């Protein structure tokens, strides 16, 4: 019988440690499908820093580096500068990319570093048990905003796509969502483009994926998907925020 659906080659055949219903699995698969389709697994180096995805080195079939918290864009810069012929991507959560690693993120973009960044925004620090993240929306209850994020006390979320679109060096930045089939197909296209941009020498390309954390949100997986649609997409609108890939280099 002909197999019509299978595990992508670039995704290792191992159990993951992710919680049931978490969207990391979907996004891992999308990246692995892109590595397969572009036939680049053997030339790719992935960088996963501290956070829920810290053990992704066991899940992706390409060479992998585990980086310190927030430093993945700097580590990826080192790899790419040392080996410009390699495809280099980072896979970072919101605490990692938008708090402790903001500096590395903004400057990698400003240098138009020719790397691909996959940014998982689930509005919380998942690995440490659900604390307030730089992307936690106003009013959201977390372990460290137990009365809801109060903007008078705890300030405002950082909108990474909007911010990076204002950086001259950024080549491509798009926000997508993992909540539904149409959005997941859109996410796949964005991720593929972010890798193709690197192969074409276009430069710093970031895809933000709105994601769930059912465990720390205290929701069922389906209610968590619903929350993306009802609360997150209105606050973090989907779309392409910058794209220079069609301009002459």
């Amino acid at each position, binding site marked *: 019988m002909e197999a019509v659906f299978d595990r992508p080659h670039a995704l290792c055949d191992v159990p993951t440690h992710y919680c049931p219903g978490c969207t990391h699995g979907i996004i891992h698969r999308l990246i692995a499908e892109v590595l397969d389709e572009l036939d680049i*697994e*053997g*030339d*790719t*180096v992935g*960088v996963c820093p501290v956070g829920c995805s*810290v*053990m992704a*080195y*066991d899940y*992706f*079939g*390409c*060479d*992998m*580096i*585990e*980086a*310190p918290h927030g*430093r993945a864009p*700097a*580590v*990826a*810069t*080192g*790899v*790419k*500068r*040392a*080996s410009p012929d*390699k*495809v280099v991507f980072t896979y970072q959560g919101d605490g990692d990319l938008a708090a402790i690693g903001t*500096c*590395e993120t*903004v*400057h990698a973009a400003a240098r138009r570093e020719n790397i691909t960044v996959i940014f998982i925004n689930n509005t919380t620090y998942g690995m440490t048990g659900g604390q307030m993240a730089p992307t936690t929306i106003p009013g959201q209850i977390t372990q460290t905003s137990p009365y809801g994020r109060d903007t008078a006390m705890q300030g405002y979320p950082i909108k990474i796509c909007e911010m990076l679109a204002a950086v001259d060096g950024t080549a491509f930045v798009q926000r997508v969502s993992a909540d539904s089939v149409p959005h997941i197909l859109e996410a796949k296209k964005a991720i593929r483009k972010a890798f193709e941009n690197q192969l074409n020498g276009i430069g710093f390309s970031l895809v933000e994926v709105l994601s769930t954390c059912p465990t720390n949100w205290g929701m069922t997986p389906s209610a968590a998907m619903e929350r993306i649609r009802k609360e997150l997409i209105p606050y973090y609108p989907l779309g392409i925020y910058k794209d220079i890939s069609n301009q002459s280099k």
Partner: protein
Amino acid sequence: MERLLMKGNEALAEAAIRAGCKCFFGYPITPQTEISAYFAKNMPKRNGVFLQAESEIAAVNMVLGASAAGVRAMTSSSSPGISLKSEGISYLAASDLPCVIVNVQRGGPGLGGIQPSQSDYFQAVKAAGHGDFHLIVYAPASVQETVDMTYLAFENADRYRMPVMILSDGLLGQMMEPVSFPDTEIKLPEKEWACTGHKHRRTHNIINSLYLQPDMLEKSVNDRFMRYERVKSECTLSEEYLCSDADIVVTAFGASARIARSAVDSARKKGIRAGLFRPKTLYPFPETELKASCRNASAVLCTEMNMGQMVYDIRLILENTLPVEFYGRTGGNIPSPEDILTQIEKMNRRIKGGALSGSSI
């Protein structure tokens, strides 16, 4: 061999390029900036990478990436910048990644000053970052030795898969001396562990420092410490000067040792049997060699440009068999040979008067 007059910092950078350094990542800070500037000028012409990072933290993590990709990489800074790099240094050590880190020390703590100091001995030797690990630490005392140790640093970083520090200071970095570069041909070792893309010809390589199982973490640390035993037996370097009959052994490293040597010469002229012991590697510390140098001594004087840091190691190694005293200046002040001679003379008078004796301790 051609002799050139070069500044310590620039000679170090030139030696690194000749030793096969492919990538340099840095951030401006006095008094090491000439290293970055030299790389900025020369790397584009010599097939290398120079990149000024957005922070010391980013620079050391770029080194981590380049090292993981299998090339020779380095960063340099001065004291406050090394504190910022310490997170990355710990990860480099824990991931068994070779690299070279240069600290052109200045006065501290805090922002301190920009004049020469040796007050990062503890940091370099005992606590370069969190966790159980060591760096090989070279302490050059001249521009020529800075060059020679830079070659050694890259070679041994690769051989033992560990970060190596060159602990220079503002004095050695800024002064000019004649120097020559060895003609040795550099053979870069194969790095089958590096992240170079597996091309579907091997399983994927992983560079990692996370071990959630205590037994696995303990094993990885134990394996690393087994390697440190090899480093101790194969890499330890020291110099002794007039120690065979020395009654007073002066211990000093780096720039301090140059000053101490002048003081020892002056003491000898005055009939005091003084000698100098100089560790050239601070980790591994030349323990056996220190004991041998003190074989006929009545007392030891440790001189440093700090408030007394290496002196703790000298006392530990000599295990209270000899009185060990300390003299130092700090804050960017450099002791004069006369200052140290005065200390040697005082010590000598107390020994002769019976007030200072090894046998009584």
